[in-house]
């Protein structure tokens, strides 16, 4: 008993000391201006959790490790968790160093709050000197600082299976009227003309229809201004978008808002639906033998006077301003900007994305060659609804568009509600 008391006291003293130390360190951490610990591996937070994309990221990290200039610790997080946690990552005292994410307005919103590392040094390095002006502009914040390193991009289009179109005796349309005729023909053959995939957790897919109709009817400039809050969602211009959408709505899959894009693309690949407006990322889940049979056509032109724009979201990386490994991050970013790194990623993934580096080779398949030409022919490039506006505005679009699809006659009230919801976001 005599021996027990001191040991218990010692235990309590130890517990108290450990607790105090933990609390103090917590206080210090939360109160500090925040720098992640210096030295050691650079932490790379990735939202690329699809199996092929994740494997490609692991290849990339291994290749960087082999160079011997630094090490990377890859942390793959589910896309939805990543998105909701990103502000916390960037503002936390001990943040991850580098993040997969989007350039343009999304990166600029963080840059305006001084949360992103200045990557000017990376952009002045030989690796990125050959990048196009358009990409350079996309990666520049309002302040003029470079905050993003773009690595790959992909395109959206009306995807279909060549063998199915041949079987049904139909071909690619060019104009809106051709497109409606095609839908009629397909419907008469008992095929669902258009798959959607805005159910489950992928309601955002419906925004592609809004984006494309808006950039075909009102132009890319109006579209960007609308998403920035310069115009209103209940303006007559936006109403025209939905008038056109109503013309094609009867050809949509009635389960379009009940199934996620993965299921909808499986339906398309199996021939239950004929085509889908989607980005090339759907191919990550497509069987390898189906990849050669996949083709796409440009979203039909509605008004030939409106300059041709296409959706081609760019992906890449930015770094937290609070990183404690600035030099190591710069070194990694320079590597990620190289043709070699982008080729490694493309080789490891489904290979349907295009590299940003002008000297990097793409997968070279006919689909990718056609995709590259498709983007090059566009007068303007848009990113996507949430990338041209903000993640915060996306749920307002999801609600408005799924409601429109279910109740097209309520379009007046849909647009009024959308404008009211959007104002709350813009006013934050």
């Amino acid at each position, binding site marked *: 008993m005599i021996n027990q008391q001191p040991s218990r006291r010692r235990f309590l003293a130890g517990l*108290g000391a450990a607790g105090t130390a933990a*609390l103090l360190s917590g206080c210090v951490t939360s109160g500090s201006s925040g720098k992640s610990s210096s030295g050691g591996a650079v932490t790379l937070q990735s939202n690329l959790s699809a199996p092929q994309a994740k494997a490609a990221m692991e290849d990339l990290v291994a290749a960087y490790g082999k160079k011997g200039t630094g090490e990377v610790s890859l942390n793959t997080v589910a896309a939805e968790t990543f998105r909701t946690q990103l502000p916390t990552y960037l*503002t936390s005292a001990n943040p991850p160093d580098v993040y997969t994410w989007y350039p343009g307005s999304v990166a600029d919103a963080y840059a305006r709050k001084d949360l992103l590392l200045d990557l000017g040094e990376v952009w002045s390095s030989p690796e990125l000197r050959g990048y196009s002006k358009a990409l350079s502009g996309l990666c520049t914040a309002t302040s003029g600082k470079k905050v993003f390193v773009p690595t790959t991009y992909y395109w959206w289009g009306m995807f279909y299976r060549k063998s199915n179109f041949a079987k049904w005796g139909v071909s690619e349309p060019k104009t809106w009227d051709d497109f409606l005729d095609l839908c009629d023909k397909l419907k008469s053959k008992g095929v669902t003309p258009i798959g959607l995939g805005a*159910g489950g957790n992928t309601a955002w897919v419906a925004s592609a229809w809004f984006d494309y109709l808006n950039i075909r009817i009102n132009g890319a400039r109006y579209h960007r201004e609308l998403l920035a809050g310069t115009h209103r969602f209940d303006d007559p211009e936006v109403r025209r978008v939905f008038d056109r959408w109503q013309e094609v709505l009867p050809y949509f899959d009635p*389960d379009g808002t009940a199934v996620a894009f993965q299921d909808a693309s499986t339906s398309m690949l199996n021939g239950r639906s004929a085509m889908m407006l989607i980005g090339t990322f759907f191919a990550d889940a497509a069987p390898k033998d189906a990849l050669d049979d996949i083709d796409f056509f440009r979203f039909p032109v509605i008004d030939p006077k409106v300059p041709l724009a296409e959706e081609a979201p760019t992906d890449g990386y930015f770094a937290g301003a609070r990183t404690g490994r600035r030099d190591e991050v710069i070194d990694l970013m320079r590597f990620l900007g190289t043709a070699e790194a982008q080729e490694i990623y493309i080789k490891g993934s489904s290979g349907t994305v295009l590299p940003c580096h002008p000297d990097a080779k793409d997968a070279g398949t006919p689909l990718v060659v056609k995709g590259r030409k498709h983007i090059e022919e566009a007068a303007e490039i848009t990113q996507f609804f949430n990338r041209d506006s903000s993640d*915060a505005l*996306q749920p307002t679009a999801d609600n408005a568009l799924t409601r429109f699809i*279910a109740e097209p006659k309520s379009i007046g009230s849909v647009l009024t509600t959308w404008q009211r919801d959007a104002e*709350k*976001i813009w006013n934050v």
Partner: protein
Amino acid sequence: MAVLTPTKSTSPAPAPPRGKRGRGAARRTPPLVLAFVLIPLLAEALWVFWPALQGFYLALTDWDGVSAPTFVGLDNFREMAGDDTFRSATWHTVLWLVLFGGLSAVLGLATALLLQQERRGIGFYRAALFLPVVFSLVATALVWQAIYQPDGVLNQVLSSVGLDSLRHAWLADQDTALYAVIVPALWRQIGYVMVLYLAGLKGIDPALYEAAKVDGAGPWQRFRHVTLPQLRSVNAVVLSVIVIDSLRSFDVVWSLTRGGPYHSSELLSTYMYSTAFQSLRLGYGSALAVVIFVLAFGVIASYLVRAFREAD
């Protein structure tokens, strides 16, 4: 034993009488006991009370989660008064409370009554009903999502029995989404409530039933005049559990519909999450959290106060 040893007195003293020694120990709380109380309290204060208080403060601010919060007073609550989505989320939460809470209590009690008697193989049925409680609610939701798919099990069963007209996109239709989401939540909760009632039923003295039988009470009268009054304390626990579970129901709704289509299955909890973490309006989201807290606290406190008053 060392805890009760007086620490100040070092010289040997005559042993005090039993009662006196007990009172002295109660007056002077030993430091070890104090430490066992204060250290967890400190931890609780730091990890629970302080964030909760911060939540109350954030409800009075406009905050995007990145910039510094701006104090706006009661503006968030004023906005709530004119917010249609908040109104429909509140209505859905009340509906959820009545349907999910009410049905889980009634069906939980019914299954407990059915399975209370020890019979051969009864353990299997009890385990089967309790099994859903063991599964993660998100995993449960994924299974139910597959059931509700347009070409899922439910629609296939309807077709196979000639009820094609009832085939439905259950989660994508605003008329059915909320009810479709309640079913998996209920499926899980019934087993939990059943176990609480089973424990309550085991505690009832069989002599009461014997006496009631002797007095000529039928099964319904025995249930009404013996079982129900004896379960009063369990009812308080069940009510607290279902009110709290109803108001914090989030995972199953979020996994299945995310409050959609267009807010038709939105609960206060999902609206709070989407406002705070999707629309990045953390001030307004905190105000919604305060409302949820007040509702939960109000319902439970008023019931408990009434229950205790009746007991007195």
